């Protein structure tokens, strides 16, 4: 697209590269420059992303966009850029240190196949902080934190990325003449591509372990690690896949049902209602319908729920407040109505039931053994009724009975909410449950 032919992607505006004499980063950066020259990309469409470590000093020497972030996190920024603008060419540079602290990002970018290029400058130690050992330090390697020789095993970065599903993986040394071409190939991959490039840290690792080019290559052999292109197995890039999956799987976002006042109510003060049952009894969703019904009756409402993290078991308690005025304080210290429909609910709410005031009415499934309480008790055949209309509708049965008994607002409002917010098949069952519940205290 650009008319300019780029003879280099490096700038000398801020002086020469800052690396130690003989450091492998010189050659690595030069290889990246050559790859970019080969590809002739518009620098505005290229981002070099780095993090902390000596190699992290290099982004600013490119004429491309540059993003320099936190230690070990370059993959996350590169992914963020690529997700935000899939048309960008994003190249992340990282040291072996960064592959340790940011190991999870390596696994996840490979797994997701986000189309960035990851270039690892792997020199077996932390050059920036004093030559400490890293996840790739060879066993026996001497560093400032392994003075007697490293007792840890080195991480196989390529093997790790491949196991995680990386689409394109290359390993070699910085002395590899093919490196610029391989880098160009990597950059052209639509999916995730990684290069693990072994090199020398002339400040620390090389002198401490007498490693030069020959020994570096021997080290690779000693591991039995393959070099060159290890995997070339393209598959859909994440953003492409994401969009396709969304387009095929998307559910139509329903226009939200708004609630207008259609009924009267007889609520004169903020009124607290607690319903205690079991997981699977649709306590939460029924409480929501009840609150929505109160809104159809012109009231304000709030709802809080209490249930275990393991949602399919144990208690489920919902607290609803309905009020003719704005509800400020959303806790129910003294419930006006308390409904307990199962053993789980009773167990969880027992202490609260024992303390209910005499102004409260306690509606209880008739088979439950209740503790002593000052509340007025109304026993109801909730289980028996629910068995006839539908086991999952027990909360609808209970709250319909309460509505008829209290006259807070018309039971028809409950029916309106059920019809408005539930799928027809379920609504039909719940409307029957509502009728059955309404009969319980009608006689």
């Amino acid at each position, binding site marked *: 697209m650009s008319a300019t032919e780029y003879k280099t992607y490096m700038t000398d505006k801020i002086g020469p590269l800052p690396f130690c004499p003989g450091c492998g980063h010189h050659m690595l950066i030069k290889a990246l420059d050559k790859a970019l020259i080969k590809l002739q990309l518009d620098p505005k469409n290229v981002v070099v992303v780095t993090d902390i470590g000596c190699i992290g000093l290099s982004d*600013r020497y490119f004429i491309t966009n540059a993003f*320099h972030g936190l230690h070990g996190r370059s993959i996350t920024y590169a992914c963020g850029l690529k997700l*935000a603008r899939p048309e*960008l060419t994003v190249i992340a540079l990282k040291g072996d240190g960064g592959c340790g602290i940011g190991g999870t990002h390596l696994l996840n970018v490979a797994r997701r196949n986000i189309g960035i290029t990851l270039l690892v400058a792997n020199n077996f130690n932390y050059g920036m902080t004093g030559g400490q050992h890293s996840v790739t330090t060879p066993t026996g390697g001497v560093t400032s934190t392994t003075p007697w020789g490293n007792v840890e095993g080195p991480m196989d970065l390529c093997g790790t990325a491949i196991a995680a599903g990386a689409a394109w993986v290359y390993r070699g040394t910085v002395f590899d003449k093919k490196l610029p071409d391989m880098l160009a190939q990597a950059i052209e991959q639509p999916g995730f591509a990684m290069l693990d490039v072994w090199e020398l840290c002339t400040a620390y690792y090389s002198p401490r372990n007498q490693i030069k080019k020959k020994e570096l290559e021997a080290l690779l052999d000693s591991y039995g690690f393959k070099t060159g292109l290890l995997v070339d197995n393209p598959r859909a890039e994440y953003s492409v896949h994401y969009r396709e999956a969304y387009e095929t799987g998307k559910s139509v976002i329903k226009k939200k049902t708004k609630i207008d006042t259609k009924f009267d109510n007889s609520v004169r003060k903020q009124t607290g209602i607690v319903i205690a049952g079991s997981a699977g009894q649709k306590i939460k969703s029924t409480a929501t319908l009840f609150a929505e019904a109160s809104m159809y009756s012109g009231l*304000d409402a709030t709802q809080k729920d209490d249930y275990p993290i393991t949602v399919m078991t144990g208690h489920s308690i919902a607290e609803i407040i309905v009020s003719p005025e704005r509800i400020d304080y959303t806790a129910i210290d003294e419930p006006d109505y308390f409904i307990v429909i199962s053993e789980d609910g009773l167990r969880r709410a027992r202490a609260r039931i024992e303390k209910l005031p005499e102004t409260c009415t306690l509606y209880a499934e008739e088979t439950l053994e209740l503790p002593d309480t000052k509340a007025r008790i109304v026993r109801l055949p909730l289980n028996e009724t629910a068995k006839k209309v539908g086991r999952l509708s027990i909360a609808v049965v209970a709250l319909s009975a309460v509505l008829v008994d209290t006259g807070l607002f018309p039971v028809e409002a409950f029916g309106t909410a059920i019809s408005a917010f539930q799928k027809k098949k379920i609504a039909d069952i719940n409307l029957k449950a509502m009728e059955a519940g309404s009969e319980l205290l009608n006689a």
Partner: protein
Amino acid sequence: MGREFLEGNEAIARGAMKAGCDFFAGYPITPASSILHYMLELVPAIGGTAIQAEDEIASMGFCIAAAMAGRKVLTATSGPGISLYSENVGLAIMGETPMVIVNIQRQGPATGSATKGAEGDIQFTRWVTSGGLPIVALSPATVGEAYELTYRAFNIAEQYRTPVFILANKEIGVTRESVDLDAIELPPLVKRKKVPKGNEYLPHYFERLTDVPDISDFGGNHIARFTTSTHDKTAYLTTNPEIIQEMIDHYAAKIDEAADDMALVREDLEDGAETLIISYGIISRSAAVTVQEVRSRGEKISSLVLQTLWPVSKAAITKAMDGVKKVIVPEMNMGQYLLEIERLAPPGVEVIGVDRMDTKLVSPAEILEKGGLL
């Protein structure tokens, strides 16, 4: 128009969408997870990206980079997740990144009571990252405010090129309320000021310290640079102490000097009242009941509700404290914003904290009793 029965987390998601949010990354955590769910439904529908990241650190990494690439970005977590956001919050400050970070606070420390509310992260938010530079944080008291303040947070983020926190609470995030979001008045949408094509782009250019640098997105019209390291206006590294200090002064001044602009408060001041309640978040609603109760006895009392917690709304707080003898500060923590009020209280004014951190709301009865209002 029309009412709905919504939880605060959905209102936050809807507020973000109303503000044009088109990128979300987050990691599941109770009680903030449903924001992730809502955003996964809403964001792809407008062509944006919402993604569950591998952890909170990646969430922030994705978000900061996406924001610098021109997206309007939201992330959401709870207190334990903010611990992991911490370092990247510093990066967002350093890079002058517009983004909104939601904290649906839960009882802590550590895992604490995952499903229970608290507001223990107030000072944590102020000092969330190394360096101690100013932070912007808004605290909603209702589901409606969760919507409104999220929208406003995007405006502040864009206008000042800064991360903005929504400091909510489980008690708002996962409590449903009857609310009409369409009836909430919102200010016009603010968009980041961009450097025109053809002009030179200096990523951190300012003339006065309080200026907010115009931006150019990664992938936009200019070569963009972003760095975690101490830099000058061009975003190149510097070791020059004068420039370093100037940049730090700029980061601080653009927020501190805008404190009055960002000050969102609800004043209910009574002439001649000797008692003032200063509150925020869910507990401001207990304070509202307390105020009603005291006034129903024919006594005077003032109330100041803070929606902006950081930077401190000094002018509004000082004005409200003028002439009072007692200030009551109820909080769902061990007395955190109390420190700010104590700092600003004139000599002789008694400042009383009414706190609890047992997962229960501070009740109006408790404020009356511990505040000496019985």
